[in-house]
């Protein structure tokens, strides 16, 4: 917020964040599905961990990704906004 971002900086940061969140998205999906058998032994609140992840956990992570993205992008957009108001 302290200094104005140039268009290029804005895009670089956007791209980096997109990449980070996509990696998180990929890891969540892949691990929940690929290691499902290994995770069965663990349990959260009664669910076997693998079932919980596939039924709720992964989807909630996706929701969190969307929330973080919308919030961080708003900050980025504001940081790069030109000071004079546009018509």
């Amino acid at each position: 917020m302290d200094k104005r971002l140039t268009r290029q900086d804005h895009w670089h940061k956007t791209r980096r964040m997109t990449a980070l969140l996509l990696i998180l998205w990929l890891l969540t999906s892949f691990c929940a599905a690929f290691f499902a058998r290994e995770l069965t032994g663990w349990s959260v609140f009664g669910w076997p961990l693998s079932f919980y992840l596939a039924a709720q956990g992964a989807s909630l992570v996706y929701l969190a990704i969307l929330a973080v993205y919308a919030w961080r992008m708003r900050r980025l957009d504001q940081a790069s906004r030109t000071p004079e108001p546009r018509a």
Partner: protein
Amino acid sequence: MKPSRTFFQRLRSYYLMFTAGFACFLIALAALEQEGMPRVWIGYLFMFATIVLYATLGVLSRTSNVLEYYVAGRRVPAMFNGMATAADWISAASFISLAGGLYLHGFDGLAYIMGWTGGYCLVALLIAPYLRKFSQYTIPDFLAERYGGAANPAGNGGRAVRVLAVIATIIVSFTYVVAQIYAVGLIASRFTGVDFSVGIFLGLASILVCSFLGGMRAITWTQVAQYIIILVAFLIPAVWLSAKHSDNPIPQVAYGKLLPKLSARENVLQHDPKEAEVRAIFRQRAADYQARINTLPASWEAGRIDTQRKLDSVKLRNASLLEIRAAERALIAYPKSADEALRAWSDARDQNLARAEPITPHATPYPGDPATSDIKRNNFLALVFCLMLGTAALPHILMRSYTTPSVHETRVSVFWTLFFILLIYLTIPALAVLVKYDIYNALVGSDYAHLPNWVSYWANVDKLNPLFSISDVNRDGVVQLAEITIDADVLVLATPEIAGLPYVISGLVAAGGLAAALSTADGLLLAISNALSHDVYYKLVDRAASTQKRVTISKLLLLAVAFIAAYAASTKPGDILSLVGAAFSLAGATLFPALALGVFWKRANQQGAIAGMVVGFTVCVYYMLHTNPILGGAAGGQWFHIAPISAGIFGVPAGVLAIVIVSLLTRPPDKQTLALIDYIRAPEQ
């Protein structure tokens, strides 16, 4: 910001009033039911009240303004856009069949939950905000502009890309819309007793009044109302069942406690000698069919003579008319030729073998021996991948990113979309477990003389393809689990009765299923007719058309497409319905690479996009034709044992590869295109 805030508040109060009104309607109906109103009237009332409601909303938001018609004036607040998109997204399949699918397949069915929610990450991160910044009307618009090509600076360069995108949009959306209209007919006919095709045309009328009069604007406001109905209809039975079985009315939390109990019960049933007896009977029946198949054509000949002889003997001994009819029917149903016998008996053998299978454990991922288990895991991953990429490329969902007031609102809107979808999707696995728990404990082990009412009701709904069947196979008078077959489509519709709720809730669930099918059909029809009118007619045929003319053409095309889809649905095309899942692979392979690379890779050019779309589509279609028995393929042709529904796992990489290779081999995009990319990437001012 001031006016949009008041607009938001006004909308909020409208919809709160609507919800309150709907609650009063429910209470009034429940009271009427107590007073003894017949069931069929409740069905009628629900059906007509909701259809009239949607039609009224459509009439109130009628418009012939281009901006309003195509993108709802770009002023739908994020939260409401999210609600409308969620209704757009939750199709008849999600509402009616998904919980049933989870009931039947246990863990492996969760691929749909993961895939259909994870796709929104791709929508938000890679596509939606950039489409909003681009601010046009359709998906082909974006692709055509982005891949305009240097050859033709007049803006016509994207012709080929536009045509390909339109074709993809239509193929993907059409199979999908037929399935929705089919579901409308099914629900309407089941709950009101009207004929299937009458049901279709009633549903069609409400779809048309809505989208025909007001386009995107009308369907947006209708979809918000439909979402509220869907949510209420889905949650009430689930909450009720959850409170009944676990003293915790929040199903999403409560079923964690029930899952271990269900697994324990499965284990008991698995080792029950009576269950083993029933399964052995089915195995024996399958073996009998196999024996007859082995001795074809002699066995066919012998069987035919035998059936004929039976008919003659009942006629000779002057048996009752009923017996003669039964013998006649048996002769008519007997295979007409040895080939037909082979097919019929193979089917019967497979059905019996399937019923002889041991219980699928609900919570265990990828059950089976190590090799089968690995194949199941790979298919799970592939399916999740295809559903995600397909979600991120469905035109009727992406189209909705054009309707918000700003890019930021689009991002927030995707968040709300997933939020509202999750309210339903987190309940679906819970509902499957709750119903399974109920059936395994209450129905299994009960006495055939005292079956609950819903059993006989649902067993008699469709005689040809029974949705629910139960018969005392081993004749011990007690219900065994192996004696029950349940169709995925019946589970949600029957839940209120299974839970012992009043009939008014059954009507509500049917209205919810209707809302889910209608809202999705609205969005899809608009996606198809916009692609035809905006992209084909306006952009390719008549560039000089007035805005008035454009909207009129669009409405006429909508009408035409709707009737074609309704006609297709009224022929009950089982094959089309089974192909709906394939739409995701096709959308993902054809549109997703071009959309995502269009934003993130400047070097992608027109030739690359054309190659990518063609290759992605071709690979997908080839794989499906090659491996799907319905399309004349054979399961033996599968690569890495991947099921045909996940053809996108090969199609998407092929499409990406084609874009990259062909783009690098041909000229880079011109300055104009690069400027466009910079523009859509730039922050909003």
